Structures are given as structure tokens and as C-alpha cells.
């Protein structure tokens, strides 16, 4: 089998220097996206561990695997977790979750946690959809818009291009920025048409970085339409896998004339939804404990 260039690295991480046994509440957020599954473990509302992996053909299995991996080596058992919230496209298929909450609410809440109360616009660029969310100083959603009908402007489209050009998905963004002159974008409305345009450009002798630049800029222009509709307010942040693609982020910032806050050290933008879910889990646990 040929190399799969779209395959981004799966990984897990435990925040060093913390003992979960000191915590009163261990909560979890499980975000089952259409492309990636993320589990976030929090101790008293602070990030403790997370895992990011590819979603398989079964959502319950993916949820279980992502949870097992997040817990790996921590000594935490599923029973030690007081409350788990499922989110994402597969949120109702998380067998051990106490509750499901939409990823829109979770991304806003998670972005509020990562970047602080000044965040007003969250752009979540996921595997098969893209959402623009407005929120208040507590991370509560006030409005949102999404595209989940079309692959243009989603991570899936970028994966198609990584494969087409045999460039690892992690390098696509930086390679696209190495062009001397910015080319005209390819079709921003359909990935299939963009792909046939790109094949034409390669035949004409365009180097890979130029073709990638033409695609990253098409993707940025597609996403900017969503942001223009909802109107970007400061502070603006980007979550989801495409937040790691500097080629798209830079061009998007140029189009909308706004800079996103830089990624925060120690956080992965793909885990924002899971973080929000784990925070909701803690709050829900405390409420239920109070009631009891």
C-alpha cells in the first residue's frame, strides 16, 4: 500500500507535575468527530490528560479507544471519573457518557478555557464541517453558522490534496507559504472540481507548493464567507485540525483583515471541544452532587 499522506499523527499526553488523586472531581469530555476522536481528562477543572486519534467505523468503539488511551499510564480507571460528557458528531454513541452536549457549545466553552474570557468568535475547522461561533465572556454560545454539506472548507478536502500531491498533511500549510508569488485560487466551491483543476495545473508544470498555495487560498476564501456572514468580533480564535495549517490560517487572516490569537502552549486546538465537554461534565457533576 502506498503511503497515506493524509494520515496525521495520533498521540496522547499527560500534563506533567500533577497527581489526579489530589483532585476532588475527575471529569471527562469525549469528542467523537467524523474524522478524529478526542478524549480530555480534567482534574478539578484543569487539563490533566488527553488523546487524539482517528475515528473508526464504529463510534462506540472509537469512544472506548480514545478514552482508554487518554487514561493509559495515568492510573485513572473509568470508575474514578465522576462524570463524562459526549460531544461531536458521534456524541450519542459514547456508551459510558452521562450526557451528550452539542459540539458548538463545547467548542465555545473550550475556547473560553484555553484563551480566556475575551474570546468572542470561535472558528472550528473540523474534519467534515466548519463552524463559526459567537460567544459571551463565559463561553456561552450567542450565535453560530455552519457548513456541513460540502467538503470545500473542511479538513477532509485538505486530506484529498495531501494525497493528490504526496505531501504529508502536516507539511501542506508551511509548504504552501514557500511560494514567491501567490497564485490564483482554484475552485472554492467544490473539492472534486478543485482537484481536477489542480491536476491540470500539475500537468502545466506548476510545482507542488504553488498548487498547494492555490488550494489553501481557495479554502481560506470559502471559510471567510462563513465568517463574513456571522461578522468576526475580537478576540478571534481558531480550533480544530485546520488551526494547525498555517497556510490556511495566514491566508484567512489576510482575507478577513483580522488576526487570530496564537495557539496556546500546552493545548492542542483539536481538543477544544473535548475540553469544553469535560468542563460541562464537572459543572453537571457538581450540580447533581448538590441536588443529592
Amino acid at each position, binding site marked *: 500500500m502506498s503511503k497515506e499522506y493524509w494520515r496525521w499523527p495520533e498521540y496522547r499526553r499527560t500534563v506533567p507535575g500533577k497527581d489526579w488523586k489530589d483532585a476532588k472531581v475527575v471529569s471527562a469530555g469525549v469528542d467523537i468527530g467524523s474524522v478524529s476522536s478526542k478524549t480530555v481528562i480534567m482534574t478539578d477543572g484543569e487539563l490533566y490528560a488527553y488523546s487524539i486519534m482517528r475515528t473508526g*467505523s464504529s463510534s462506540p468503539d472509537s469512544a472506548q479507544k480514545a478514552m482508554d488511551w487518554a487514561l493509559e499510564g495515568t492510573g485513572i480507571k473509568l470508575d474514578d471519573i465522576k462524570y463524562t460528557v459526549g460531544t461531536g458528531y458521534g456524541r450519542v454513541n459514547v456508551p459510558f457518557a452521562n450526557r451528550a452536549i452539542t459540539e458548538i457549545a463545547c467548542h465555545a466553552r473550550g475556547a473560553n478555557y484555553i484563551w480566556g474570557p475575551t474570546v468572542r468568535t470561535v472558528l472550528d475547522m473540523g474534519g*467534515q464541517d466548519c463552524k463559526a461561533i459567537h460567544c459571551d465572556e463565559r463561553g456561552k454560545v450567542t450565535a453560530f453558522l455552519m457548513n456541513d*454539506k*460540502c*467538503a470545500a472548507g473542511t479538513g*477532509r*478536502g485538505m486530506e*484529498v490534496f495531501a494525497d493528490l500531491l504526496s505531501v504529508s498533511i502536516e507539511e501542506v500549510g508551511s509548504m504552501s507559504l514557500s511560494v514567491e508569488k501567490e497564485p490564483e485560487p482554484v*475552485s472554492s*466551491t*467544490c*473539492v*472534486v*472540481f478543485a482537484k*481536477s483543476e489542480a491536476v491540470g495545473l500539475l*500537468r502545466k508544470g506548476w510545482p507542488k507548493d504553488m498548487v498547494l498555495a492555490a488550494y489553501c487560498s481557495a479554502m481560506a476564501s470559502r471559510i471567510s464567507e462563513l465568517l463574513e456572514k456571522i461578522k468576526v468580533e475580537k478576540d478571534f480564535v481558531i480550533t480544530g485540525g485546520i488551526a494547525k495549517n498555517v497556510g490556511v490560517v495566514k491566508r484567512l487572516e489576510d482575507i478577513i483583515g483580522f488576526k487570530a490569537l496564537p495557539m496556546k502552549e500546552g493545548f492542542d486546538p483539536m481538543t477544544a471541544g473535548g475540553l469544553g465537554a469535560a468542563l460541562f461534565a464537572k459543572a453537571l457533576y457538581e450540580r447533581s452532587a448538590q441536588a443529592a
Partner: protein
Amino acid sequence: MITAGIDMGAKNVKVVILEDNKILSKGMILGGFDQKASAEKVFNETLQKAGLSRNNIEHVVATGAGKDVAPCANGEISMMGADALGGAFLFPSARTVIDVGAEEGRAVKCDEEGKMLDFVINERCAAGAGTFVEAMSRALEVKLEEMGPLALKAQKAVPMNAQCTIFAESEVVSLIHAKTPKADISRAIHDAIADRIASMTRRLGVQRDVVLVGGVAKNAGFIESLKRALGVDLLVPDEPDFVGALGAALAPMRKNGEK
């Protein structure tokens, strides 16, 4: 008068040579890497088949997405105009001509003389064009020409949730994993594209008779799905992919007021 129509489609180049209202010869070739060179080749072959040389042709009219690079054309007509002329020539009762090509879907309203009155078009999304079926045939591992006959063997209507071609590819793979019979999946694919073409056509108004042309009109599974989606019968010519080229070849005669 001898005329030629060249339809420079997104996938294939089609040529029709007419003497008055009689077809002398026709030819088709894959546009491929160099569409212009392919077009020249098929044009010359079609001339030979009719026993003619370029000098015998009074008007060469180009149409299709690549009409600007058509060889020796001295006139051009829009794809919609060509659809209307060609559709009404073959079926004088036609009032709506639906053309589904490789990368575009169109619906054209016309009068009994083949004059275009109005049209709608989808050129922005592959899900409403032949490319969609092609991509799905790859996902399903079924030859493109077998897709239609396979759909006709379906036992059940399985819904497709994805609209986008890229997302539909993954959905087809999931359906295969779920052990859905290939015939049912094939029907779901044709229903999906037919729904899109039908809703586009309804924006124009579905006025009978409805003629279906373009390369995808050769697909029997699609014809059935579109009949169901529109709720009307469809008239389909024998060689639906040549209708655009035929319309282009007819254009000079219509201009001269001949019938």
C-alpha cells in the same frame, strides 16, 4: 448547406456534421490532456467519414466548456442554446431539455422552434453532475457503464445522507461495510444525483415534454431515478451525448431562417 457542430465538453469532444437537416457523420473522443489536439483529430475523422474536407463546411459552430479552443470554428453558441436547438430538433414536443454532463447539469426551457427561453445551471458542485456517479463507481468498485443496470436491480430504496461527492464516497464505503447490497447502493447513488437535478429543474418549472440529454442520459439507472424524482416521463434520444454538437450544427440554419 453543410455545417458542423463541435461540443467541447468537460470530458469528451463531440462532432456532428449536417447537410441541411440530415446528419452526415458524427464522432466522439476523450478530451484528455490536450483537448484542442483531440478535437482536431476527431474533427478530421468525422470529416473523412462524411467524405468531406474542411472547405466543404460552410459553418463550424463551437459549444461546450472549452469552446474557445475549438479548431476552425467560425461561430459559437452557448451550451444552453445548443441544448434547446438539438433537443427540439429531435423531439419537436420538447419544452424542457435537461442536460447532465460530466461536470455540469443544466435545464433549459424552449419553444417548438428550439429557441431557448430560460435556463438554470449547476456548475459549482460535482454532486449534480456525471463526475458524481464516476466517483461513486470507483468507491463501489463497479464499472461506470454497469452502474445504471445495477441500480435497476435494487430491491430497496436506501437513503444517502451526504450531499457532497467527497462525503458520499465515505458513505458508500460505510454502506459496503454494513453489507448493503451493491444494487441498493447504486440506486441510492442515482437517486441522490437525480434529486439534485430534479430540484434544479423545478426552479425553472417542469414543462412537458421533458427531454433528457448529455452523457449521463446513457445511464438507465439515472433515467429511472430522474423519472421518479420529477414524476414525469422522459424522452431520451438514442445518442444523448451528441445533442449539444447537433444543436451547434443546427444554429447557422436557424439563423438563416431555414427550417
